């Protein structure tokens, strides 16, 4: 049984068919990629899988259970973690608070525990701080623990976002353009960060990328999406050199090797 199985998923915004008959299977430990020109519907697919939009048709199965119709926080708690293209960090919160927040669904002290500062709350908060520090160490952001994220350099912000996403203990991690806006050095760094996360937690990862180098280095399987439909899928080399893919990109933007 695949870990994540998306079957015949379609969605439209008004009259615009944003995604049609989309299929995806991810096995445990597999890294998949999704490429395509701007506006092809890549982020929409992420939003459909994570429950931000509800697909008009189709199923999203995580370990066999259909998660369509659940709220996005429930889907996240079930094990589909994600990052965002525009990061979406919380600007008034410190790095430590970011990572601890991702443990929200794991806390059990309840509201009255929070109001009354119960011993259980103290224990759980302490344990959660310790665990958060481990995640932060793993991504090399522990020295920023008490700083507001907005004061961090861009690369560190990206790593905070990764630490935060992994602290939810996902089974599948969706990365939305993890290297967008990065210099080539930062990009190389990010590739190793993704690898590290993959090896350490034995995750299945599915990522959107514009940079084919990232896709080539990380992914075993790639889909090319154009106008909401998968045009070609296969290994990175097959997809990259496919005439249809080249056609879709030309005139649209340059391929950044």
């Amino acid at each position, binding site marked *: 049984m695949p870990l994540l199985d998306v079957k015949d998923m379609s969605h439209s915004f008004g009259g615009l068919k944003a995604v049609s008959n989309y299929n995806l299977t991810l096995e445990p430990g597999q890294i998949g990629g999704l490429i395509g020109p701007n506006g092809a519907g890549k982020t929409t697919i992420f939003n459909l899988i994570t429950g931000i939009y509800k697909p008009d048709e189709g199923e999203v199965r995580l370990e066999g259970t259909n998660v369509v119709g659940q709220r996005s926080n429930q889907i996240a708690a079930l094990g589909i973690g994600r990052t965002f293209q525009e990061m979406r960090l919380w600007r008034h919160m410190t790095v430590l608070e970011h990572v601890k927040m991702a443990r929200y669904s794991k806390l059990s002290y309840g509201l009255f525990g929070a*109001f009354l500062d119960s011993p259980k709350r103290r224990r759980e908060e302490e344990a959660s701080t310790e665990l958060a520090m481990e995640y932060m160490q793993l991504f090399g952001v522990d020295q920023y623990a008490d700083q507001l994220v907005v004061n961090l350099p861009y690369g560190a912000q990206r790593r905070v976002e990764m630490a935060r996403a992994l602290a939810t203990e996902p089974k599948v991690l969706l990365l939305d353009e993890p290297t967008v806006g990065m210099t080539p050095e930062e990009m190389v760094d990010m590739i190793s960060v993704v690898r590290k996360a993959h090896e350490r937690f034995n995750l299945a990862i599915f990522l959107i990328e514009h940079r084919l180098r990232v896709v080539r280095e990380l992914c075993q399987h790639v889909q090319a999406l154009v106008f909401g439909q998968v045009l070609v899928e296969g290994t990175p080399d097959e997809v990259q050199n496919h005439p249809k893919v080249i056609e879709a990109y030309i005139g649209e933007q340059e391929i950044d090797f």
Partner: protein
Amino acid sequence: MAATSELKQQKGFKGLYFRFYGGAPLLGVLLGFLVCTLWEMIIGEALASVLLLPKMPILFGLVTMSKVFAGLINLVIKDTPFEWFTLIHVPMAMIYFAVVYAVPLAVVIRLTGRTANAVARSLQQLPLIVTVLVHLGFMYAIFHFWAELSDYRLISLKLTLVAVLLTLSLNIINGYMGEFSCSHPGFMAVGAYMSSFFTVGLFVNDKVLGDAVLGIPLAFLSFPLALIFGGLCASASALIVAIPSFRTRGDYLAIISLAFLFIVKSFFENMQSLGGSRGIMGQPDWATLPVIFIVVVIGVWAINNFVNSTLGKALNAVRDDEMAADAMTVDTRKTKMVAFLFGAFWAGLAGGLLAHVLRFINPAMFGIQKLAEVLAMVYFGGLNSVYGSIVGAVSISLLGEVLRPLEILKWIFIPLLLILVMIYRPTGLVAFREFDVRKAFGPKEVD
């Protein structure tokens, strides 16, 4: 040590403050204030007559000064006669303030700074609760002696304490969660009416609510129950605002919550069985200073606990980016619901306290003007901060009392001040500051 001497070099208010009072822990400052209040009890009356003041200054001489100012303004705009002799009240009030408060405070803090630090350090070895109780004991003693000198002081102090709780409860929604809710006076009204319904209905012979059902002695022991009942009713009514908050944000929620405020107000205006527009009066005199002090301390404690827990920080996550909060497993619906219900609970409780301080309520008290007042306190003091709520509630209450002699002009000065704060500190005076009891009550200098 280095940090303190650096602070002493600083220019401006902070530097000035540190040159006089620097290095003293809160314990020393509280001791200083206690000495001041006791000192005022001894010499206040006599000093006032020596300084040719008509009576003892009530609020640090500020009202005395603003009365003179108001007289001058009336002379200019209305041509009312002005007794030029009263000009002398201004320097005399300043002297009074210096002799009674500023100088003794500085002397005590200077003299006891080292000892107070040592005491604060040794208190740190004990459980936190001991430190907290010692500080609260000092605070209460100051309030008690300070308010003993005049009834006006007592009622101002009570109202200010209630305002602190109210401001903090609104800060949960407008600051920590970043929504703009206008329904707070509505929650207060529900709390005030329901707790009055409880106390007046059960224990007082009243024209509207009928004779006392119960007449047991020690009935005031049920006052906490009455307050909690009021708070819970306010929470229940908050559901009406909380549910639309899942779908609307920003301006729309502001309009819905404003509508809620008017619904509540006209509901009570038309409920003849609750006194209609005349309201309810004759609440038993149970909201004494110690009761209010304890309730407000518990409220601040519970709210502070909540906003510092991960469940409470979820409010910030929802405010700063709701989509990211959802993706990080935060139950955003529950979070919003809790913020509204919890905020409304404390607002209702504050409303109940207010009803029993004033011992009379009517629907007109819980209108737009109240809303403006409490919003001003929140935004002036600072969003997302317990300190900010205290600063906001105290300073706006104090300003309101001080500027009272200016009558209608008061409503030019206070909004003007608010505009200035919004321009120069858009999030308020002390925004986004965490209240850490250990830090606040701990020693200040390491030497």
